[in-house]
Every structure is written in structure tokens, then in C-alpha cells.
């Protein structure tokens, strides 16, 4: 199996510095790479973009960022009969929209199920990020977006599909578009796609409030325990990675309280008074 280029977006390692976005603009705005890409518009054409998910409310929230760009799909929708000779996938997996042959082909924009082909009005060209194919061909070791990442929030890997499939199977990675088979993967994607529930527990003694730490918490769904936790020194706890499918959860706080709730988005349940035995 030939090795292909893959990209891993790890939201636990992303500080949203946007170095990847800016360096991609630096590479393509005003620069022509014949055979690979024509100049990118200065603004309004996000070949690479940082997206944000805010979860929770009030004092308990979570904010995660992930990258969105061309996924070099394993079966790219943009490579089809209608685009034969215009859009093609290289052996290394990189999809190229020929900047000469694609002129005027606005129809190609709509072919991408991920909205990652952008119309360049001035040049009348469908365009997207080429994963820096022109640089990789010239001997660069990885796309610039990955090399400027300070943390490994964005990692480029050259590997066989099978090797990557194994990493997906192990649970380390999730494929961004599993249905179609993308070569863009997420790490810690629960922060993007799943929900959390949390609360702050406190006690009142002689009229004085204190955070209730060390309280045992049990989360059940359909009568089954799905997670257990203990409140921290601020009396807080948080169960993450939950499905926000509108189903009912039951939360047991110590042996004294029970809360029932349904979850569609992440929820901070606020402050809850407890008594310490």
C-alpha cells in the first residue's frame, strides 16, 4: 500500500493561535504555483479555518478548537466523471484542482460535501488547500501548517491508510468523515461532538457555605452506571463524553440526592446544597 498524507487535529493541544491558518494564507495569497494552485484571495476564502465549540454555561464551560480544511477524502466526491482531467487525486492522496483546466468550473464548488472548495470570483476558479503539494514535491518534510504548530495540535503524517485505520480502531483517533473516508482525523473529539454535565456542590454549616469536596457521584442511564466521579476541592465535578441525544440521565450525589435530567447540549446544573454525613 502506498503511503498517503493524513492530518490529525487534536483539540486538546490546540491553543487557537491560528498559526496554521496564517501560514497557509502566507503561502497562497499573492503566489502562483503553476500546476498546483493559483493565488488565493486575501480574505473570504478560508482554505484552512479554525472552528470553535463552546460548551456549558455560567461558571462551568469548555472551549475547544479544531481545524477545518480539505480532507483528501479516500473517495473524493470532487474526483468524478465530470471533473476528469480537471480534478485528480495523486498517489500520495492529495487532491489537486488543476488551476488551468478548472477555469470557469463553478460546478466543482458544490461537489465537496464538506464545503472545502471555494470559488475565486476574480480568477473564476474553484480552489482549495493543496496540502502544500508544491512544497512536498520540492522536498519539504511536511505542510507548513503542521510545522508551525507549537504543540502538535495539527500533525501531518505520511502513512498507509491501513496504519491510520488501526489508530482509528484503537480509539486514539476518529475520522472526520467516517462515512466517506477522510484523511482528516480528530483527537479528543468528544470536546467537539459530545456533551458534559457538571455542578458545584456545597454545604451549609452555621450559616457558612463551603465547597463540598470528595462527594461521590454516580451517573446512570437506563439503570446502568455509566460513570463515577468525586467532587473536587471546589465541590465541582464534570462528566464528559456523554451523548446529547435527549435521553434521560440519573445523577446520584452521595447517598442523599438524586437528580434526573435529559441532555441535548452540555449543562452546568449550577450549585447544589448537600449535607456531609
Amino acid at each position, binding site marked *: 500500500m502506498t503511503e498517503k498524507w493524513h492530518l490529525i487535529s487534536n483539540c486538546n*493541544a*490546540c*491553543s*487557537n*493561535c*491560528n*498559526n496554521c*491558518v*496564517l*501560514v497557509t*494564507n*502566507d*503561502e497562497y*495569497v*499573492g*503566489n502562483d504555483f503553476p500546476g498546483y494552485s493559483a493565488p488565493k484571495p*486575501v*480574505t*473570504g476564502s*478560508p482554505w484552512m479555518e*479554525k472552528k*470553535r465549540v*463552546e460548551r*456549558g*454555561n*455560567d*461558571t*462551568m*464551560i*469548555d*472551549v*475547544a*478548537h479544531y481545524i477545518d480544511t480539505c480532507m483528501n477524502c479516500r473517495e473524493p466526491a470532487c474526483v468524478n466523471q465530470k471533473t476528469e482531467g480537471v480534478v485528480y487525486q495523486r498517489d500520495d492522496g492529495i487532491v489537486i484542482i488543476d488551476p488551468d483546466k478548472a477555469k470557469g468550473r463553478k460546478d466543482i464548488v458544490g461537489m465537496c460535501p464538506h464545503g472545502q472548495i471555494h470559488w475565486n470570483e476574480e480568477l473564476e476558479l474553484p480552489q482549495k488547500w493543496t496540502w502544500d503539494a508544491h512544497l512536498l514535491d*520540492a*522536498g519539504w518534510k511536511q505542510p*507548513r501548517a503542521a*510545522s*508551525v504548530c*507549537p*504543540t*502538535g495540535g495539527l500533525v501531518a503524517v505520511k502513512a498507509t491508510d491501513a496504519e491510520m485505520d488501526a489508530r482509528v480502531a484503537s480509539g486514539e483517533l476518529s475520522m472526520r468523515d467516517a462515512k466517506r473516508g477522510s484523511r482528516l482525523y480528530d483527537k479528543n473529539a468528544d470536546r467537539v461532538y459530545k456533551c458534559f454535565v457538571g455542578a458545584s456542590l*456545597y454545604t451549609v454549616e452555621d450559616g*457558612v*457555605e*463551603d*465547597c463540598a*469536596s470528595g462527594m461521590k457521584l454516580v451517573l446512570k442511564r437506563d439503570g446502568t452506571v455509566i460513570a463515577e466521579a468525586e467532587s*473536587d*476541592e*471546589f*465541590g*465541582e465535578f464534570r462528566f464528559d463524553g456523554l451523548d446529547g441525544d435527549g435521553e434521560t440521565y440519573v445523577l446520584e450525589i452521595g447517598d442523599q440526592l438524586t437528580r434526573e435530567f435529559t441532555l441535548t447540549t452540555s449543562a452546568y446544573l449550577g*450549585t447544589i446544597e448537600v449535607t456531609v454525613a
Partner: protein
Amino acid sequence: MGLKETKFRTILTALPIMFGLKAKKSETFRKYISSRDAVVQIQLGDNSIIKHLVFQSGKTRLRNGLHASPDVHIYFKDIDAALTVMTPPTDYGEVIHAGKNFRVKLTGDEEAVAWFTQLAGKLESDGWEYGEKQTDGSMRYTQITNGGPLHVYVKDGKILRTHIIEFDDDDPETWTIEARGQKFSPKRKGLVAPHALAMKANVYAENRALYPMKRVDFDPDGERNPQNRGTSGYERISWDEALDIVSKEIMRQKRVHGPGSIALSSPSHHQWGNINYYLSALMRFGNAVGVTRVTLNPDSWEGWYWGAMHHHGSSMRLGLPTGYGTLEDALEHADQIVYWASDPESQFGAYGGTETTARRLWAKKLGIKSIHINPHYSPTAAFTGGKWIQIKPGTDAALALSLMYIWIKEDSYDKHFVENRTDGFDEWKAYVMGETDGIPKTPEWQEGETGVPAREARALARSWAKKKTYLGAGVSGCGMGGACRNATGMQWARCMLMLNAMQGWGRPGVNFGNLSFGAPNNLEFYFPGYAEGGISGELNNTGSAGNNYCRMPHLISMNPVEQRIPRQRLPEAILDGECEGYEMAPKSMEGQFQGFKYPAPGYSKVHMLYRYGSSAMSTTNGSNRFPDMYRSPEVEFVVNQTVWVEGESQFADIILPACTQFERWDIGEWNNAGGLGHHWTSQTNHRIIAMLHKCIEPLGESKSDYQIFWDICKRLGMGAYFSEGCDELAWAKRVFESSDLNGKISWKKFLKKGYYVIPPELPSRKPPVDMRWFYEGRPKDLPEPFPLPGSYTHENLHGLPTQSGKFEFVPNSLRRIGDPERPAVMQYVAPFEIDGAPELIKDFPLQLIIPHSRFSFHTAQDAKGNSLSDIKDHRVLVDGHYYWIVRINPKDAEARGIKHHELVKVHNERGAVICAAEVTTRMTPGVAHSYESSAQYQPLGKPGESPDIGGCMNTLSTNRLQSGKTVASAGSLVHVEIEKWDKAAYHAEAAE
């Protein structure tokens, strides 16, 4: 004739041959030598040798005897002086020494002198190779920016790309830190701030100043129309016209008004580089001209400088802790990090780029917890996670006091440290417990001030006492920015120090930091930082005297004008005709108590502004004062030397176009401030020194800052004095030779490769940790030349430079001045922007915080017509305009009917700014957030009196100072109202 004379004659005879050979070999040299004709006379003091060189059409001849009208006259007092100067390689120590003592004189036509000295320099420098050729035919050069070092790829005279520097096998090993059984090593590259990667667009920005410009209705010899500044347009003029107008006006001002009438005003940040920097070339120029200096307040240091310093005596660092050795200490020993108004992922420790970001992941891996005390769930909070304590801005000291209250009440502070290393604790304790003012600073009490639940304050106090805690305070974790720049900034900074003192500051795992400082770099390797004065020759107002002036002999410069204006008070100085200031005087804690007044006795008031850069509208508090100032008839002339036409450059009479750092020569080290920021290079993972190659020719007719100053100086008859005959490349070599680089790498190799990585500290040599010596009662062991020996009250290096030699909970220095606004026993006072004006609070109930911006280094990258505008956290496109962003809580937005990304008017009694609203759970209810430092000032109507759609949030901030007898700005916390922007209604009203 002696041997020496023979040698000198031989050299002179050889000169035409050398010029001829060089011209034959090099096209650039040929072009340069042919660019003018000149006669250069060379004469010994006793007239025993008199010759002149005749340059004509690129050819050189040596003739005997006096020339009737030479263009350049070189006088040597004696043969020794002649040989000192004329014998290569140039020993600047000797040459400058001979010049200072008038054994060498260089006079004549200034342009000819400049041409000839550069010609002589080019004998050596022409043909130097720089940059590395790439396989695609492009050249790769180097740069250092405020956000980090870059490789710059240039093809066909145009910048192709700017990329980070990734190390090669020739570069030295990288350090490894072992902590809790794990090993950590940084990436072998320079990790930059996002704004560094937006720099190419800066060069080709649509608002570049490319030609000298004159305001159309400004006539230096007739009507000057100052009232039209900011509204009338510009016409292109030649450099000759522009330089004539500026230099004639400089001399006219002095003759008509007397000394002091020219004020020189620069921003406190600049494009990188030790030569063109404002503390270098501009300082030298200002001193040469003689100007009323518009002085910097210790901006971004406010609370630390005017407040915290007095507790530990750190005046030479403007009140800050040092950060030495703290990275390994924190990773090895700390249990948690409290980020208190500390957002390193937004402000990057000023110049440190994203070098420190991965360290926060290391900490996470080691189980070190994070707590964020901040009204904004900052990018750092989003990155590290952890506990978020929402706090009402400006009330931080109340929370801090309650922590101390709990520690005293529960007996959970470091009693050994407090008893043995501190002074005044009992008096402080009496205040905390309420014995002196009847208000015990309980968690319940603070809740009413801060909005932080009492139980959380208690939990925080207990956690802090139990666990070894690093306190990351402000931008760098060791101060600056954060909450030190608002009305209660001094209280906050003072409390930060006292918190750490109560927990044994210097104990393993107990210190200041957010993992930004303290990497095990070789700090004792000398390379001058920007604050070391570069070529300024200014020994009092830069750090030059310490190392630079001795290591790189150059001519001293001194400003004959003592008059100063504090930057915060420039509009008042012009409009009211008077103001007062207080010193930024790091030598001692008492320096800052010394006031000064404008106008100073005997000096003229200011009637000319030489403004350098265009950032004041969005970086100076209460900046809606500036349009009036600029239109004042008191100001007869405004010249602005700027790279971009933006902000206040649109108020100038003459605009001098400066080029970007990519278009001129310079040299520098990443993150090396030097001076008051001594050893800040412990922030980066590697120390990287680089050439700032002249990557491309200056765009349009723009010139380097250095060249512009030189050109003006030539017209004032002091070009040779200003330049010492050196162009920027020659100066860069002098800087190189003055540093410890000399001997580690050859100049030619350095020039070609462009950068040098200093090998890290040896693993066997553990760097000392800040305050560990003090905690353990040892003499000081840090490699800093601070404090001045005379500041110790015990033996040298024993104790702190306070009166007691101890950490002072109640500073003696403050006690001695008896200023009720800065009491020795710190008093909690709610910020005046909240409680000082109840009638305004009714109308403007929201608090707005405006910290340093994230994606633009101050105004440098913003609004240049670049792709930065596409970053959704930077600007938002609405109806064809990229608006600045204000962040607001969903509840506050809902109450005002404001939806995400809708346009809103952020306003108060000082002005109005139209922004795009970001509705986000990341804001504490009642608090809005925006960044200062928009480069764009775009008033819809009359400047200063109409809404600004550019995003200058500082038009809303207060110019009131934190306290009297300081120039501590307080503007990062503002009261405002935010409402939906009714554009149509505004324009309808304006039309009427």
C-alpha cells in the same frame, strides 16, 4: 621620512588602485562609485602630507597638494592618527577615540562625506554574501520580529513566503528538563506568535506610506491651516522637498521659540532590530537635534512599578520578579498554577511567540492543575482547562485579601518565612483582620466586591495553602499587563507579592510564573538587547552604559533639552499648556517620587511634533483627546515618520515614509530586551540571534528609519556625527563584533546563514531559582547586575534592597512619602471606574476590559488589508467592513437584544466605537471584553467627536491615573454601555 609616513603614503597610493580593482570586479561597486564625482582632501596636521583623491566618472586618481574646493576634508592631527584610521581592519575603539579627541576630523559637504565613508566601507562589504540559495532559484533570508524569528523566501525581488526557522544539524543540541521522572524537550525550531506569520502582508499592505506626502493645505511659508489636520488630503512631494521642509522647520523652531519647542514622540514598541530601533537610531537623532522628549510611562508595568516594587525593591526591573530557573522548579515541584489575570496564550509574554505553549501541556501531563482568575475565560483557560473563577474586574485585591484572611485565621501560611524574611507583617495582619478599619477581609466580605462566592474563596485559600502553588500574575506570569493597568492595578500587583510572601516565596514549587520564564538557556552569553541602546550613545535613558557602550565604542549623544512631557499627558501639555509627570527612574524606589513639570523652567513650550509611528489613537488611554491636540494652533508643525498611513498619521503636515524591517539591514536577538528586561531570553526555548537581512529593496520611495534620520542630520550639518560614517550593515557588523558571537561564528558565515543558536546551559549546571537564595537565607546568586550595590542595607548581595533588607508587607519607602493615595499599608479601594461616578454608572453599567491584542502586536499587523482580517477572533466582516470585536455574555446580549456578530455601539461619555458583537459564555456577566490596539482610526464624522468604526477602544478609556503623583495609566478597565448600532438612524441624523 619615517616608516610610518611611508606606510601612510603607500596606503594612499594604493587607494585608487583598490577602488579601481573593486569597480572592475563588482558591478554594484562600480555603480556606486560612479554615482557622483567628488574631491576628498587628506591632510596631516603639520602639512607634511597633503593629497587629494579625485573621483570622476567612476575613476579615482590621487593628486598631491591642496585642492581649492574639496567636497570632503579629512584631517589627521598626526601620522599615528592617520594610520589608526586608515589601516584595515578598522579598530573602532581606536578610531572613535581619535575622533573624540579631535585627532581626526571629517568635514565638508555632508552628502559627499556620507558618500565617501560608505564607499570606503564598501571596499570591504561589497561582495559579502548573504542568505542561502534555494533549489527553486529563490533566496532564503532571516528576520526577527516582535513575534519571533523568520526565514524569508524571496524570488524576483518579491517576498514569496515567511516561515519559521527550523534548525539543521549544524545547530546545537536542545535542552532537556527532567521533572517527576519524565523528560521534556522543546521542538527544534523557533515557534512564533501568529502575528509573525502575518508580516509579509505588512510589507505589501495597501496603506503603506510609499512616498513623502504633504497635507494639501499646509504651506510652511504661508497658511498652515492646523485646524484642518485629520480632514484635508495629501499630495506627493519629493524627498528633497520633504527633508528641506523638516530640517528648515527644526532650525526655525529653535530660532523662533528657543530650546524645547520640538517634541519627539515615539511608541514603546517598534519593528525589531538593534540599529533602527527607537531606543537606538531615534534616540541618537533626538539627542542630536535637541528635543523635548515625550517620555514613556512604564506602560504595562503600572501596578508593579508604582506599587509592588516597594515591597521587594525590584526597581531595576520596574517592580517585577525575575523568573530565573522557574520552569524546571515549577514542573518538578508545583502542584498547581494560579493564572491570575494571566493569559500567556494571548499576549505571548510580549515577544516570546508560542515557545511556551507546549510547556503548559507538559504541566498538564504531570498533573499540575490550573486555576484561572479572570473575568474572561481566556484563550489560556480554554487551552489548559481547570477551575475558572469569574471575578468583577478591578476588585482582585479583595479576593486576595480574603485568601490572606483565611491563611491567618487557619494558621496556614509560612510562619518561618514571615518571621525571618519579612517586615511589617503584624501591621498588615491588623488590616487584613479588620482590626484597624473594622472590616475583617472575610470571604463573605470579598463576595460583595468581587462576585466570587465566599465558599470558592475559602476553597481557593485552602487549596493554595495545602498545595505548592505557582502564581502566574499578568502576561509573563512575572507581572506586566493583566490587571496592573486598571484603576486598582497597584493594589492587585501589591497583593500578588504579598500572597507569595505569605506562602514562602522561593520555596521549591512556590514562585511567580506561568511557565513562560526560566528555561535553561545560557543566559551569561552576551548579546545586546534592544533596550541597551543600540547606536544611540545615550547613557542615561537606555541600558547602554552597562555593556553596549563599552563593548561597541561609539560617540556619546546627549539631549541638551531637559524638558519632558509624560506620554499620557501630551494632549494636556499642548491644549492646557501645562502638565506634570513622574519619573521612570529604575535606579531606586525613590526615583519615581521625583516629579517634573511642563513647561520646564526656561524652555519653550512645544510648537512642533516629530511623531514616529501611528499607534497613539489606540494604544494611549483616553485617546479622543488627540484629535483636538493635533488641530491646536499651538502646534505649528507635525511630521510623522511612519510605515503605514493609519491612526494618527492622518493628522500630520508631512509624512515621511519609513520602510519595514524586511527592506533594510539590522541585527538582533529574539526576545532580548536587555536593560530592565535583563535575561528575558530565558523565555524562549533557544536563544536565537539573527541578521535582519535586507530581503528586498524598499518599496516605493520609502527608506529605513536610520536613513531618514541620517538624511535630516546631513541637512543639519551633523550627518557624519550621526552616522560615524557607517551604513546600517556596517553598524550591524559593529554590533556583532561587540557581542559574544564574535569568535563563535565568523561574520561572513553568520551573514550568509543569517542566524546563530546559542548552545543551552550545560545539564551539569543547574540554573539558580529566583528567590531560592532569599528563602534559604543565602547571599544572592542570580546572574543579574541588580540592584545597585548601594541599595543594600546589609552586606552586598545580602537581603533585598528594601530599607529593612526584608520583604516589606508595609513598605518603608511608601511610608516615607506619606501619600494617602498610595498608603504604606495597602488599602482595598474599589476602582473609580465602578464606584467613583455613580451617576455615570447608571448610564454605562457594563465594565469593559481592553487587554493587549492577540493577533496583532499592538497596531503592527492589524488592518493592513491582509488576511488577518479573516481570523474570526480578530475582526468580523459586516456589510463590507471588517469590524473590531467586543465580547459580551449571552445574558447581557439578550437584555439588549444583541445577536452574535451584529453591529453594536460601545460608548460612554468619552466616545463611541462601532464593533461586531461576539456573544459568548466566556464572559462574566456584566463584563465585556475587547482588545486595545486597532491600527485603524476611522471616525464617521468629525475626528474626536464621532463614532469610530476602526476599533480604537482607547477612545473610550479614561486618562485618569491610578493615583496622584504617578503616571500610572488606568485605562484597561472602562465603563460603557453597549447597544445595537442603528446605522441608518445615525446617518439620517448626521445628514440633518
